[in-house]
């Protein structure tokens, strides 16, 4: 531990001043664009992601892909060339983005009720504007909001969060780019926070298996925290939209 910089200081603060179990600031907005059926924007710390959902619509291109019992879910992950501190050559098509697309699809497929839309297709596009650690979690959260905005039935929210192990002992949540760079393992999970089911888990580097349960519990806790934030955003958005159509005038608002 002498050479490696400690990720959590003696008084329990991380490099950016957070405590081990604190998320970065999450700000989000639904319905950013008018052309897609659903769209959302999310900021987690400095990481900024835009998501757009088109569909369900008729299968485009190759019709033979259409399935008789479920909708096809099509995901594309792309990163703006200026999103990282060093300029990227291509926004998509490289190995990392195709991997991200596949993982994104996997997480979202677990929550979307695809069986309701046979012979159709749902397109989900995410665009990363600024990558500062935790790109995948932000993408999943943005895509969830966009799906809700599009009115596509979901089993429940899908939320993702990353966690790591600091100083070989303390589990910490929502890893920033700086912390990723300084080393330490990163565990990313996407989960259905209400039923506590994990739909995707990915880990880089290594730590002892004894540490796994507590890191995973921390990441799951992060997912639940994010769910609360997203839920609030969805409710206030629906309220705003509803108010403008005049429903608040007809009946008293009931706070649950």
């Amino acid at each position, binding site marked *: 531990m002498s050479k490696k910089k400690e990720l959590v200081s003696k008084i329990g603060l991380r490099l950016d001043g957070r405590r081990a179990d604190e998320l970065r600031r999450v700000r989000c907005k639904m319905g950013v*664009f*008018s*052309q897609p059926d659903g769209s959302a*924007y999310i*900021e987690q710390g400095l990481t900024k992601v835009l998501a757009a959902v088109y569909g369900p619509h008729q299968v485009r291109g190759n019709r033979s892909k259409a399935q008789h019992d479920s909708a096809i879910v099509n995901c594309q992950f792309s990163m*703006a*060339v200026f999103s990282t501190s060093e300029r990227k050559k291509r926004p998509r098509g490289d190995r990392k983005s195709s991997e991200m697309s596949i993982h994104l699809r996997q997480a979202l497929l677990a929550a979307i009720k695809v069986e309701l839309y046979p012979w159709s297709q749902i397109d989900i*596009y995410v*665009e990363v504007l600024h990558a500062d650690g935790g790109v995948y979690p932000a993408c999943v959260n943005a895509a969830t909001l966009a799906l809700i905005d599009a009115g596509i039935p979901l089993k429940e929210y899908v939320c993702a969060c990353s966690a790591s192990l600091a100083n070989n002992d303390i589990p910490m949540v929502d890893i920033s780019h700086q912390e990723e760079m300084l080393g330490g393992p990163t565990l990313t999970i996407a989960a259905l926070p209400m039923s506590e089911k994990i739909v995707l888990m990915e880990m880089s580097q290594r730590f002892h298996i004894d540490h796994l349960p507590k890191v995973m519990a921390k990441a799951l806790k992060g997912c639940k925290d994010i769910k609360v934030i997203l839920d609030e955003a969805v409710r206030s958005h629906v309220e705003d939209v509803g108010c403008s159509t005049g429903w608040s005038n007809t009946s008293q608002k009931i706070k649950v």
Partner: protein
Amino acid sequence: MALCEAEKTFILHSVEENFRIDGRQRGDYRPMELETNIVAPSFGSARLRLANTDVLVSVKLEIDSPTLEQPKLGKIEFFVDCSANATPDFEGRGGDNLATEISNCLSSAYKSSTAFDAGKLCILKGSKCWKLYVDILLLECGGNLYDAVSLAVKAALWDTRIPLVKSVVVDGNKVDMEVSDELFDCERLDVTGAPIMVTVCKIGDQCIVDPTTAEEHCSGGSVVVAVSKSNFSTILQTGGGSLHPMTLLESLKLGQTVAQRLDSTLINTLKQINDNSTDVGFLK
């Protein structure tokens, strides 16, 4: 977007009456929103929303060596990325054609030295210069892409700050430079001459500016003019259709006046932006 004959006729008549489907006159623009300095990892950035068209531009700087033919000039490169967020047609490589078309048009518009002085980007003749990467991200397409892109690019270049080079030491073939450590020790670019592009669309017998997607579908031919101060720096005929030489000259004149008007409005707006306003971005 698919339009039926009746809809097309309606648009045609509305242009004829000088009262377009959204209530504008032929020379009017839709409302715009502009925000600068919105992408953190770049030297300058801007986001322009022209009704439904949404463009995000970022400028990044790198040190490069000038070409042998032009040892005194810096470099500027435009890259357009059509995000699939705009329309599913852009998925994969679907937007590449449109992207190349726009970026080529931009680079030819910025080629002239009176429009954009690349000499200012030179650090040491023949060996070191700044290279500007202007990256344009199309987030939503609601018609009139060229105009929106050119305005956003100009705003982003206005916002760009180039670090001050304190000293350059030449030791044989090796060139060492020292860039100022101070964060705010930067120079702004001179963008007063940066070209503004205006798409003039011919519908029926009349020419209009700032067409919506529906109007673009009814157009019998359109021409993009890039105007720098009062001179044309590029003229490009886009889309299908043909134009009579007389109409072409007329539309060029219209494009020029509109571009000058747009340019002065943009500069005035940019001057009003103060540095310490809070970021709004996409959260508005």
